[in-house]
């Protein structure tokens, strides 16, 4: 699973994208939804929990925690935005 990182999440995780090999999960343990992915990442990188907000985008749209994901989706972490 490949996750694109932006803004402060790039600093926290230390690279512009994060590739999680399937071997990182025990059988049936890989995140199947946005919520499960968020839980996994917040455990692996606790600093993510300190952000004012952390959205997950799936295929260029903001996604709710219930949204199902698979390895073909384009997934990105969106920290607080600051355009304009």
């Amino acid at each position, binding site marked *: 699973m490949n996750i694109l990182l932006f*803004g402060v999440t790039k600093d926290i995780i230390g690279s512009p994208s994060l590739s999680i090999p399937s071997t990182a999960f025990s059988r049936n343990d890989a995140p199947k939804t946005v919520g499960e992915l968020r839980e996994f990442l917040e455990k692996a990188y606790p600093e993510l929990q300190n952000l004012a907000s952390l959205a997950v985008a799936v295929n260029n749209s903001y996604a709710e925690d219930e949204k199902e994901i698979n390895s073909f989706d384009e997934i990105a972490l969106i920290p607080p935005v600051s355009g304009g």
Partner: protein
Amino acid sequence: METKIKNVFVDGAISPEFIANSIAKHQSKTTIGAHDIFLGQVRADEIDGKTVVGIDYSAYEAMANQKFHEIREATFEQFELSCMHIYHSLGKVGVGEICLFVFVSSPHRKEVFEALHYVVEAIKKDVPVFGKELFADDSYQWKVNT
């Protein structure tokens, strides 16, 4: 008909000349009776005793352009506009320089005031653009829109 997704991003600051040219280009569109323009300018905020010297903008470009497109479509649906243009900087923009240029036009003034407010608020809230506030000593912090 599905309209094409435009690229909103420009490299670096948006120059006053670019803005003036945009205005000039509308002089041939004579059904327009009112323009309204928003210009976002980089502020020299003081944070913990250090002064911001510029903002380095980055974005999730594909999604940001998609979001700008959705905001544009929603605005045209709600307000009677003749046209709308949005430009946002990427990369470094110094204090006092322009990083966002929104330009709306309509036959009448009421529509442009309301549409412009709607567009700018939507951009600030939804578009995945990230500003890194740069300080003179090479340190930085990530900006958060309030």
